[in-house]
């Protein structure tokens, strides 16, 4: 493998990771932008989303990587899987907000954040107790087709991840920028009191933020399963920490920032794995610390008041 091929392959790896981190980071950032709340349950919603998709795909009769679909059946299966997963995860997010966080909306201090930690562990243990502790083989109907760029391999799954992530991120960005509720979200992020005075239904806005963020996390969970061919109750923690880092790196509360942060962390992880495998975590978090020391609001973030 020549050096260029190697760099190409690691870039492909990095962008795939980055796409997943970006999807997760967006959820963090949406909620933080509006509520100034770090939602620790977010990455376990991602994990639950991965399991919802697992069950949906199983219902289609898929087990493991044996059954392969192409063309229209594949598109239909994936569409249904994504739709159900996103709605399901979104619903879980809304449930969390409604039951656990809305009563704490006006409480100062870390009560809400700690509540999200508790919810996170509840989700984690519910899945552990119902599905067991083992890594499950993921039902994957994608054909094992691959393209070669020199010696580098570009798998069909990778293209799917990028396509889906891009579509979702662009859709979210358009929604936030162009729609009425999107404008309401941006207004609430800027100043909740003023927004309320202008007639914005803050409750609805918060609910929408949780729904969208969790739906994206769910999509991320399905993508994770299709990419790695496994899922387990543990995937939330490892991916979540990196995604949270990505959100902060890009500027927490900033939607394009989350996307940028995700891609950067993904690329660093891939290149770090190439150069010094065991030190990858050290490298990632050192870069985070350095960026925050010199630009505390993150790469694209600005200090209050404007956030998203």
């Amino acid at each position, binding site marked *: 493998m020549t050096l260029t*091929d190697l760099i190409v392959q690691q870039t492909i*790896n990095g962008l795939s990771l980055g796409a997943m981190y970006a999807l997760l980071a967006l959820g963090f950032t949406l909620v933080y932008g509006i509520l100034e709340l770090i939602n620790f349950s977010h990455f376990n919603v991602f994990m639950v989303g991965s399991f919802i998709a697992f069950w949906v795909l199983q219902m289609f009769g898929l087990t493991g*990587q044996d059954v392969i679909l192409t063309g229209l059946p594949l598109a239909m299966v994936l569409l249904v899987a994504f739709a159900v997963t996103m709605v399901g995860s979104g619903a879980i997010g809304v449930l969390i907000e409604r039951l656990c966080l809305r009563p704490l909306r006006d409480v100062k201090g870390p009560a809400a954040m700690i509540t999200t930690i508790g919810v996170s562990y509840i989700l984690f243990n519910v899945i552990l107790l119902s599905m067991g*502790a*083992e*890594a499950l*083989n993921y039902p994957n109907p994608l054909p094992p087709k691959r393209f070669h760029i020199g010696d580098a391999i570009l798998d069909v799954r990778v293209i799917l991840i990028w396509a889906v992530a891009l579509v979702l991120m662009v859709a979210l960005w358009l929604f936030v920028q162009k729609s009425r509720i999107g404008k309401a979200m941006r207004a609430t992020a800027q100043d909740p009191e003023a927004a309320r005075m202008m007639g914005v239904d803050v409750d609805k806005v918060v609910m929408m933020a949780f729904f969208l963020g969790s739906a994206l996390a769910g999509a991320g969970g399905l993508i994770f399963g299709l990419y790695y061919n496994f899922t387990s109750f543990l995937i939330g923690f490892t991916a979540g920490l990196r995604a949270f880092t990505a959100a902060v790196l890009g500027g927490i509360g900033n939607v394009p920032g989350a996307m940028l942060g995700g891609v950067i962390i993904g690329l660093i992880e*891939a290149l770090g794995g190439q150069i010094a495998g065991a030190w990858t975590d050290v490298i990632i978090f050192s870069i985070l610390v350095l960026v925050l020391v010199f630009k505390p609001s993150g790469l694209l973030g600005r200090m209050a008041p404007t956030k998203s």
Partner: protein
Amino acid sequence: MITRRAAARLAAGSAFTATLGLGSRASLAADKVIKVGVNLSLTGADAEDAKRILNGVIMALDGANQGNAVPGYQFQLMTLDDGTATAGQYDPAQAATNARKMVSDHAVMAAIGPQMSGAGKAMAPILSEGDLATITPSSTNPDITNPKFAAQFDPSGKPIYFRTVTTDAFQGPNMANYMAEKLGIKNVYVLDDSGAYGVGLADAYQAQVDKKGVKVLGRDRLDPKAADYTAILTKIKALNPAAIYYGGVGQAGIKLAKQAYDSMPKVIKAGGDGVYGASFLTGAGFPAANGWYATIASPHLVGGDEKAAEFVKTYTARFGVAPEDYSITAYDGTLVIVDAVKRVAASGKPVTRAAVRDAIQTAKVPTIQGIVSFDKYGDLADRTVSVFQIEENKAGKPDDVSAQYKYIGVAPQS
């Protein structure tokens, strides 16, 4: 006449053994209870193998109780789990807690386990101080019985860590011999999973394979908690290895198998007994698991002679799953404990932990794997390492170890 106390003990004893799934014959009023502590990784990535090992122990204790192997004594299981959810596999801290539980329960005379060497390193000093002997059916890290490290793992000075398998001092190097001589590889990349077993095995393998003239292209560590190994695998692929060797257990092994299949389908892949078992088959699945070489630190038992065939039949009928080789080593280890208790009781001395330990040390018990005896450090006298290769067998069940792992032969001895 049955006193009330004896009747209560009788009722409790049979209720207990019944709930634990152990059969018990109608016990006489004066039966003493001997508890056997069993510590296995029943939660996490190696749970499937743990279950199959536990079943072997249950069969042996059951047989002992029903056959009245030691008159006046009934055996009881005390099952403990050293796997935790947060670790996703064995947790040395939990293993240490379990060791303390066993030591503090005075009815526990001996133990089976642990399954994993990382747990073994945590448990050995505690068991040593409690003078509680344990027989492990699968822990292979040589440090625990190495006299050089006696201060760390055996402070009391008397061996308490016995094995019905050999150690990685042979498992690693013998596989290196096999790969160098029989597969003729010219270079290899070595990986470990940062656990005590994996690192020890990879080190032993690497040293020997280097001596055999095979070029070691590099050595890397996989994080069992991380999901993504694509970066490291891409780096390895660029070096064009003929083979990769993985020292470690299922949690990282399963992900490695899946991702290595994607990036390097033609490269020879091999591991130790951490990639041998139902956990690896169900976790990695096919086609990712296909072609992997695995070793175990014992002779190949399932599918062996008549005794083994009889065992397999009874086991499968009773538990609904097929046994693995380590189910048999666990069964054999339990037979050794039963035999030890029997000899102590027969000699008229009181059955204490120290007496049982001494009896285990001098054991010469006929079992399915042959006559089991231990050297003065607690290691198994037999040093055989067996080599297998996974070959997908669609006719068999996908988690049936005998169907999917093809036995190749005994690895060339170092």
